């Protein structure tokens, strides 16, 4: 056989076996722990290392665990409200920085980017101090208002991400479209609503997805702002993990992974349909 059919061209690095091996190795490194975690949430053994048979009993325990369910509900509520607020604030911030020229713009730009780069731990302790000594958040409020401090903290680090995504999308907006709308009689607000918002819709979806996941995932900042009555899912899981590796934690983690995957697929589908429309 002297055919060269399977020889890769010089720049087809992905077709070299060494590169494929490397790629496979890295993906095993990234995924094997998660796969094992998911698989063993269905394992009928407390020791959780040898496969003993399929069971859903840990999921049953999960749903009977009231603390965990409350924490889960708290997390979803916080993520939902924080995402809504972040979308509004992030979009406004993006439009502000894209559209207007005003004194001190560079400083505003820097301040808006700050929450993205400040280490989580610093933001966490800042929020702790703020909500305990500067404006103490009353801790006897009814649900969901007792979550207010956490929601505020989450919005503070989520909306700059939304602003970033929306601004990237605005960068390729043809301003003449908006001028045409105004030429045809639209007011400032009408032009914003009818022309600009449809253009940035994909970015809004991406931003919403991003802030929802960021909020749902956050542990460090929440850890410093949550009280005994306002435990979120990651905080609850953290306290469980501290004790030991149990199938119940595996089950809880699997549910959160599933939620993340569903969110990503949903986001991708929405993205696709909104791109098709525009």
């Amino acid at each position: 056989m002297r055919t060269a059919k399977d020889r890769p061209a010089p720049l087809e690095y992905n077709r070299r076996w060494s590169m494929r091996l490397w790629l496979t190795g890295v993906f095993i490194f990234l995924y094997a722990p998660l796969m094992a975690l998911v698989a063993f949430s269905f394992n009928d053994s407390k020791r959780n290392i040898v496969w003993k048979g399929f069971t859903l009993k840990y999921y049953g325990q999960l749903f009977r665990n009231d603390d965990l369910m409350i924490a889960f509900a708290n997390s979803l509520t916080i993520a939902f409200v924080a995402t809504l607020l972040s979308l509004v604030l992030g979009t406004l911030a993006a439009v502000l920085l894209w559209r207007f020229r005003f004194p001190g713009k560079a400083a505003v730009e820097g301040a808006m980017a700050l929450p993205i780069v400040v280490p989580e731990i610093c933001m966490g302790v800042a929020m702790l101090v703020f909500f305990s000594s500067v404006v103490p958040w009353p801790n006897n409020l009814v649900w969901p208002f007792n979550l207010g401090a956490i929601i505020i903290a989450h919005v503070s680090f989520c909306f700059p991400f939304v602003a970033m995504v929306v601004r990237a999308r605005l960068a390729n907006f043809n301003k003449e479209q908006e001028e045409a709308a105004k030429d045809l009689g639209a007011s400032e607000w009408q032009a914003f609503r009818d022309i600009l918002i449809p253009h940035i819709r994909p970015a809004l979806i991406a931003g919403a997805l991003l802030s929802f996941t960021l909020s749902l995932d956050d542990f460090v900042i929440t850890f410093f702002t949550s009280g005994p009555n306002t435990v979120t899912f990651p905080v609850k899981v953290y306290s469980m993990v501290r004790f030991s590796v149990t199938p119940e934690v595996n089950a809880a983690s699997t549910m959160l992974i599933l939620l993340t995957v569903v969110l990503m697929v949903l986001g991708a589908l929405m993205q696709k349909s909104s791109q098709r429309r525009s």
Partner: protein
Amino acid sequence: MAARESTESRLAFWATALPPLLWVAVFFLIPLGVIWAYSFGENLGLTGVSISGTFANYARAFEPLYLQIFAKSVFVAGVTTLLCLIIGFPVALAIVFASERWRPWLLLLVMLPFWTNLLIRTYALIAVLRTEGYVNYGLAWIWESASWLKTLVGLEPLAPYEPLQLLYNNFAVVFGLVYVHLPFMVLPLYAALDRLDRSLMEASLDLGAGHLRTLFSIVVPLALPGIISGVIITFVPALGAYLTPDLLGGPDSQMIANVIERQFKKANDWPFGAALSFLLMYATFIAIALRAYLSRGKAADAHGI
């Protein structure tokens, strides 16, 4: 007409500007400002803090004990970044040159862990690395097979398998940080390599250079801004990492974030914790400024200015 329009646009400006500006000011800058003020304060009793303008907290942060932890944090973050770069570069390269059909899937595979909860990923590592975890289980199996093979040929069996201590030490912290931060490195590298004009690499090969030579004299210099971005984007969160050293580290693998947490939650020394927080923040800003400076220099260089 003109007057009406200018009022309208002024109104539009304030309607757009006020909500985000107020939010950032009240719920971000003021909290940070308070911490900053606290870092110059002293403890009064159990909960009170008086801001006396003292530098004692900063002086304390420069005591050998804390300097050592700072140095260790920088070192651990540095090793993490280096490992991410070494592991991630071939991955980014392979994705850039993958076929149209594969590329989005490979990117998705890199991104998916990035979207998965940090706590869960760290927890998954505990399950893998602990003494009764999968790695030790697998190693034990290999050990016992070897032992069995020895008895098969009439030799003494090996001593019973001693599980490796893979968790609660510095190795586990670096392993966990690499595991968590690898996507941070791969994505900017991918973006930089994807922008690279392939004919430049082909020209280099055509002129007689091998692949390694092409990599180091063409690809790396041209992708340098992206590589710097990847390095900083990985280094900054690794430096401030709290969860990974907390869950995977041992008593001697504390990083700066763990010390800060302790000041606020256990030791109740807020002023000192505040000072440490701001030192960490300054370190972060220096890293980011460095990136801006380096990539600006490179951009200017590329344009021959």
